[in-house]
């Protein structure tokens, strides 16, 4: 066993593969930031809201007001530096920190693909992505043609986990046997030309999409790994992601996954792409040619980097299963829902009316949520228990500060899940102002009247 591990760790792979991923990742991120900025979302999502929902344990992350633009600027510039491979190590650390900080400001905007970006950039900190075709290599006048194979495999494993876990999450009765939520979502695309009024409305098509989506997610990592199926698999990747792009507002994610999947190809292709880039776009070509000390030895790696990467993957493999220790239906309580590659799995909506009560006089009034939350925040809050609790505390503090006495906060809330009729969500007799956030099960979530079978 130990021998096999040592043997595996000694295996080498072309640095070009990792360089390709680095360049693709950097450019995609840089473009994502520009896109986000140009859509005015920095303003509407981070500056306009007077209140932000925090991740448990990250309440200390403050919004920066107008300086949020600086944060995005730093993030965008570091992404570009990653693509260039210039002061790479610093750039990737800065990118990871700034991007993650942005995400931690408000969990309202949580998306699986933002989480993917965060952890992928974290992983890249420990990988020598700048040894080849980078300005760092130009500066050092030295590049390594080979890096340890596990460096490349780490990226492949991460992509594989994203797909495979997303596939596992689809193994539930709503997705497979009710074609939910696609049965709600697809018919609403009636204004897509040709397909809109035909395929999108067909019951069988909803099932085909549900099942093929599940099979795609479960199989694609393996189809990409095996040489024989790789080309077909990549075509599938492109079709699948472009199709989801057409149907759903999922921003840059499809492109990130398509570009990311290129790493599964043979190094010969990566080298070809880099040679092409070098010929066409490389303003540093002459300098590049001066990098003569192309070495055939494998770039040595630090043990500590290897340990970090192993630790990282242990976490990634185990963390999505944490929902198993919570009672109740995961889709209902969402305890352990996030950070687990549950992508587009449910259609959930709710309303939450907060009631502020004076415990002594029993006088009460209701809160107009739009006084404190943006429409997006209100929408997200209304069906997620941890949001509801945090908001209840915010309201409690707010009205106590305003001079109200003996403040209690109750919520009357209803949630509808995957087309079922809405039902009461939170126990309205529980004073949420007295409840504390923790990783423990929230007993004040009412139980779900239905059963969803599966993983």
């Amino acid at each position: 066993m130990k021998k096999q591990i040592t043997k595996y760790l000694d295996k080498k792979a072309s640095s070009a593969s990792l360089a390709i991923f680095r360049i693709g990742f950097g450019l995609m991120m840089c473009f994502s930031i520009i896109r986000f900025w140009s859509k005015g979302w920095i303003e509407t999502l981070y500056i306009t809201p007077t209140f932000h929902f925090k991740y448990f344990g990250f309440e200390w992350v403050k919004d920066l007001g107008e300086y949020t633009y600086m944060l995005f600027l730093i993030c965008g510039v570091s992404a570009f530096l990653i693509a260039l491979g210039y002061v790479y190590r610093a750039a990737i650390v800065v990118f990871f920190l700034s991007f993650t900080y942005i995400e931690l400001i408000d969990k309202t905007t949580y998306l699986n693909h933002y989480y993917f970006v965060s952890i992928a950039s974290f992983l890249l900190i420990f990988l020598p992505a700048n040894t080849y075709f980078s300005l760092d290599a130009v500066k050092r006048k030295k590049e390594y043609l080979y890096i340890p194979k596990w460096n490349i495999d780490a990226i492949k494993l991460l992509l594989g986990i994203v797909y495979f876990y997303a596939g596992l999450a689809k193994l539930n009765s709503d997705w497979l046997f009710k074609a939910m939520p696609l049965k709600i979502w697809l018919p609403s695309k009636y204004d897509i030309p040709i397909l809109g009024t035909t395929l999108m409305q067909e019951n069988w098509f909803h099932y085909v999409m549900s099942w093929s989506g599940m099979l795609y997610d479960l199989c694609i990592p393996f189809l990409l790994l095996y040489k024989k199926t790789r080309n077909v698999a990549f075509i599938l990747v492109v079709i699948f992601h472009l199709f989801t792009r057409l149907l759903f507002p999922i921003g840059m994610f499809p492109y990130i996954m398509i570009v990311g999947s290129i790493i599964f190809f043979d190094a010969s292709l990566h080298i070809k792409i880099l040679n092409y880039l070098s010929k066409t776009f490389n303003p540093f070509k002459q300098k590049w040619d001066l990098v003569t000390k192309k070495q055939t030895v494998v770039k040595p790696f630090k043990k500590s980097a290897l340990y970090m990467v192993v630790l990282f993957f242990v976490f990634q493999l185990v963390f999505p299963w944490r929902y198993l220790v919570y009672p109740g239906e995961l889709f209902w309580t969402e305890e352990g829902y996030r950070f687990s590659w549950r992508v587009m799995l449910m259609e959930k909506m709710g309303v939450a009316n907060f009631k502020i009560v004076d415990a002594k006089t029993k006088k009460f009034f209701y809160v107009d949520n739009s006084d404190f939350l943006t429409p997006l925040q209100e929408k997200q809050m209304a069906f997620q228990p941890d949001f509801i609790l945090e908001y209840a505390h915010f309201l409690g503090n707010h009205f106590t500060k305003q001079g109200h006495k003996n403040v209690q906060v109750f919520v009357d809330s209803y949630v509808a899940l995957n087309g079922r009729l809405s039902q009461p969500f939170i126990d309205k007799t529980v004073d949420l102002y007295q409840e504390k956030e923790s990783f423990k099960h929230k007993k004040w979530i009412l139980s779900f009247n239905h059963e969803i079978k599966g993983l």
Partner: protein
Amino acid sequence: MIKKLFLLAIVFLVYACSSSTDDSSGGGDNDNFDREAVLINVADNIVIPALEDLSQKLVTLKADKDAFVATPDQTNLDALRSSWLSAYEVWQYVEMFNIGKAEEILYSFQMNIYPVSVADVEDNINSGSYDLTHVNNNDAVGFPTVDYLLYGIAADDDAILVKYEDVKYLNYLSDVINQMDTLTDEVLNDWTTSYRATFIASTSNTASSAYNKLVNDFIFYYEKGLRANKIGTPAGNFSTDPLPDRVEAFYNNEISKTLALEALTAVEDFFNGKAYNGTAIGESYATHLESLDNSALQALINTQFNGAREKINELDNSFSNQISVDNTKMTEAYDALQLNVVAIKVDMLQAFNVSVDYVDADGD
């Protein structure tokens, strides 16, 4: 391996399709619903007839006002009050359609913002120069201001008539009513000349399409214009203590219930596609829900409308009296209205799966 997987998949697929027909609760399987038919019904049988009626009522109001300005006596005051009330009732059928020209010129903000700002009204009257369309004057124009001018400027009718010996009061009354008439004609004209065509063609599932905006307008009006403004806010549901002076038509003080019931009829009829003039039923959200195999929700919403109507019927004609006598009846009426906020805002919206107009961000 792969082949086996696909084979397995197909077997499951056949099983899934054959076994799932009986348990599709909500979220139907066909949405080739004719949205244009709904929009045509709404435009031709609901919005435009209601606006035409309002326009006529405002013409009468204007004529009675002119008579009163010529001869400010009790007879003319009574006539003026009665035509104000008729117009106010019709207004309840118009307020929710904050779309097209109405949205552009902030029509409803210039017609029915209450409570009226007495200070602003009196300042305008005294200064004699004002821009009634200015946003700062939204609470010094429209039906609530006429309410104040006809019932509230002095303690009793004799004293009110004395006030109108001052021509400044007559001028302001006249200007406010003329403005209401002008705005209404502007909105109505836009509907009959150009907007109807734009409206009925705009059926796509985008944030800016008429179909989706109408859903949002309906929900917003039900939640805010009806539930909160007419009942919840005066009953103190959003404040520590009740605010009886926030009721609609506060100075008249005996028609807040009439107006609330008219508004409830308006939303109910709109939901069911019932024509403004008469009893004809056309395509509507109710039929849209039926086409999605969701008649249960449609029935639930109508039951809850009836429940709310029963609760409102129990109230005093004057909500401000009701609040001081027994406010729990008011909060009960509010709770009854709240039930349909859930059914409409959560269940109906999920069934329609419309793109809501306020959320602009990526999803995943």
